[in-house]
Every structure is written in structure tokens, then in C-alpha cells.
């Protein structure tokens, strides 16, 4: 098979830009998702009644409906109810909805993995429930969660492809645009693959490293 390398070179800058966009969206989405997840964990930890139900509902919706449909709902359906969000706002809401749901699950099992005795010895020195969460549970849950949290980062970063559906110029959008225009199918797919390899291979190796490092719950140093 003959590859049109000139064509690939010509569009390299577009792909670099798109790769940057993918990373930017992914990065911001991860940040917001973490934020959401910490708040959710807080709610779950303190069992703030009506809110825990909301958190559960969120988790179930996020995990059991496709991101594409969430995205379409926000982007195309909400304006009919008079709420118009920009593409980027939509992306960040939808992705933090998804990521927040997944990350909360990660934190939840992380918190459950912190032994009950840790809470008890915290209580025994008179810590309030907030102090217990802040100084004892959260730092340990975070550390325990690191490998699966990282696996979820990768998952979320991959889900960014879905946002091409609402015209956000990330990697997949760029690739399919060029394919539908010029039909340099294999050239464009190869470019996309290379971009994803550049992004994901290092992350994947980092994940492997973190997993080995934290498998036995190493703390400190």
C-alpha cells in the first residue's frame, strides 16, 4: 500500500494542534472530575441524606448511559428548553459528569479500603468527623486509589474522541474531517494512531509503574 507522505507532512501541524486539543480537553476534564469526585466522596462519607441519593443517581447515570447521548442531550436538546451551552462548556460538563461518576466510585472503594480501625483510632483521639475525613481517611484513600485513578484518567482521556460529534476539533474530528474530504484514509488513520501512541504509551507505562509501586499500599517516602 502506498502512503502519501507529502499529504501527511502537510497536515502534521493540524494533528499536533488536534493532539493538543485532546490533551487540553482531557486534562481539564480530569481536573473537574476529580473536583466532583472529592465533593461526592465527602457527601458519601458524611452520609448527607438527600445528597447521597443524588450522588448515587449521578453515578448510575454516568456509568450506564453512553457519553455520546449525554453529550447530545446537553448540546442539542437543552437549547430547546432555552439553555444554550457552548461546545466547550458542554464538553466539560459531560466529561466531568462521566469522569466524576467513575472517579467517585474509585474513591469510594479507596475509602472502603481504609481500615475501619483507622477511623476508630482517629475518633479515639477526639478528632471530629471532618478532621477524620481531612487528615486520616482522604489522604489514605487517595493513595490507595492512585493506580485505579490513573487507569480512569486514561479511560477518560480516550473518551474525548466522543466530543468530535459536537464539532470540537480534537484528534478524531480532525481525522474524520480529512478522511471525508480527501479520502486519504490510511494516511490520516496512521497520523491519528501515532498521535494517540505518543499520548497514551507514556501514560500506560506510568500506570504500570504506579501499580507496582502502590500495589502493597506503600506509604510515605
Amino acid at each position, binding site marked *: 500500500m502506498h502512503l502519501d507522505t507529502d499529504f501527511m507532512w502537510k497536515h502534521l501541524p493540524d494533528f499536533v494542534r488536534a493532539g493538543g486539543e485532546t490533551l487540553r480537553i482531557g486534562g481539564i476534564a480530569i481536573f473537574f472530575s476529580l473536583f466532583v469526585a472529592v465533593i461526592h466522596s465527602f457527601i458519601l462519607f458524611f452520609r448527607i441524606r438527600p445528597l447521597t441519593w443524588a450522588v448515587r443517581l449521578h453515578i448510575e447515570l454516568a456509568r450506564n448511559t453512553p457519553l455520546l447521548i449525554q453529550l447530545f442531550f446537553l448540546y442539542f436538546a437543552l437549547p430547546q428548553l432555552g439553555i444554550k451551552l457552548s461546545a466547550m462548556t458542554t464538553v466539560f460538563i459531560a466529561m466531568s459528569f462521566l469522569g466524576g461518576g467513575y472517579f467517585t466510585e474509585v474513591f469510594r472503594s479507596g475509602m472502603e479500603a481504609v481500615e475501619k480501625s483507622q477511623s476508630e483510632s482517629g475518633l479515639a*483521639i*477526639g478528632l471530629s468527623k471532618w478532621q477524620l475525613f481531612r487528615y486520616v481517611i482522604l489522604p489514605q484513600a487517595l493513595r490507595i486509589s492512585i493506580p485505579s485513578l490513573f487507569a480512569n484518567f486514561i479511560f477518560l482521556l480516550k473518551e474525548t474522541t466522543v466530543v468530535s460529534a459536537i464539532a470540537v476539533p480534537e484528534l478524531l474530528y480532525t481525522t474524520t474531517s480529512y478522511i471525508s474530504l480527501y479520502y486519504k484514509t490510511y494516511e490520516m488513520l496512521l497520523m491519528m494512531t501515532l498521535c494517540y501512541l505518543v499520548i497514551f504509551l507514556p501514560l500506560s507505562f506510568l500506570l504500570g509503574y504506579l501499580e507496582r509501586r502502590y500495589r502493597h*499500599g506503600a*506509604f*510515605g517516602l
Partner: protein
Amino acid sequence: MGERLLQLRQVEKSFDGHRVLKRIDLDVAAGEVVVILGPSGCGKSTLLRCLNGLEPIQGGTLLFKGEDLNAGKVPWRVTRQKIGMVFQSYHLFPHMTVLDNILLGPLKVQKRSRREAAADAEKLLSRVGLLDKKNAYPRQLSGGQQQRIAIVRALCMRPEVMLFDEVTAALDPEMVKEVLEVMLDLAREGMTMLIVTHEMRFARAVADRIVFMDGGEICEIAPPDAFFNRPQSGRARQFLNRFFEIETGKGREEV
């Protein structure tokens, strides 16, 4: 012996309808060392946990310096500062250094100044012989060292009573001694203590009174010599036998 520090009156505790403590009456005077003995599952740990508010009780009253602990007037969080507790498996916070473990309570709960609290902590650390470990992480320490840190962590809150729940049960036999000696030391200084242990010799050495429990009830309260030499209840005798029979062991017939 001082005034009554702890008074338990008809304390009841059940888990899902299963009665674990049955009408417990017990007084502990200031400066007194009470050792609680009894077979596994008889409710010793539960008793200590009730005194620390880790388990709510279903009946009776717990008085600390004459105040009803479960009246809800003083939150448990405050009371716990006066009642220190040490657990079987140390439960140090693995993500903090030794010093941070010890200072968490004094700084965050009691809002003491770091300087003053740290000085206090270091004094206590050097008393248990671990001052040089103050910047180590728990996992870098042996079990015996961790348990001594746990004791310091509780002491640094300046409690008026200390509760010890089988604090040497998880330790290698060689490390038992170093922990027991810290406790003996505390007893000598007049700390009020409630101790659950299976170390009979230590119990005998440290206790002012032995409380023997079985099936959620207090069967016998006696001074150590009396208890070990002339246990009154059949259940206590049976219990003591289990411990001592093998020691007077029959050995084996030569093959």
C-alpha cells in the same frame, strides 16, 4: 486511692438483639489499675469500646467524674480527649510520621501550640525510648515500637484514664516485654488504667484489681493474688486452667 473516676451502672450492650454486655456494674477509682480477663468473645473489647464511645450502649449509665457520658451534654469528641485508648493492632496513621501521628490530636483537636505539644511529645517519646524515631514512618518500625508510639499518641492528649485492649496480642513474643514495661511504668506513676490482656503474669504484676468476665457478665472482681491463687467462680478456674495446663505439661513418652 482517689475519687471515683469511672462508674458503670447496669450497662447493657447488644448487637442486633444479641446481648454482649449484661448489666455491668464497675467503679474505677483515680489512680487505679483494673485488668479485665475473660475468654474470647466474652465482651472485654466491647466494654472498653463503650467507655470510649465507639459503641453506643443500650441501657444503664456510664459516669465519668460523675457526669453521664451518654446524656449528650458533652460530645464524645470532647470526652475522648480525657479517655485515651490503645488498640491491639496499634492503628497508627500510615501516611504520617511518628511525630505527626502523635501531634494530630494535640494540634487539631486541642489546638495546642506546636512548640509546646512537640516538646511534650518528645518527652514522652524519650520516655519510651523512641525519640530517635520521631521522623520515621510507622512501616519502618517494628510492632513493638509501633505500639509504644500508639501509647504515646494517646498519652500526649493528657488523658485521665487509659484503656488498653490486648495491646500485646499482635506482637512478636520478644517485643511484648518492651510494651508491657511502658505500661508498668505508667502504673507506677499513678495513671488510671483499664487493661484487657492475656498476659497473666503481667496482669498479676500490674493490677490493683482483676475483673473476670464471661458471657457478657462480670463473674468475679478480686485482687490479683486472690484471683490467681483462689479463683472463686468455676468459670474463672476453668479459664485459668486453659492457660496453665500446658505449662505444667505432661511432655511426651520417649519413643
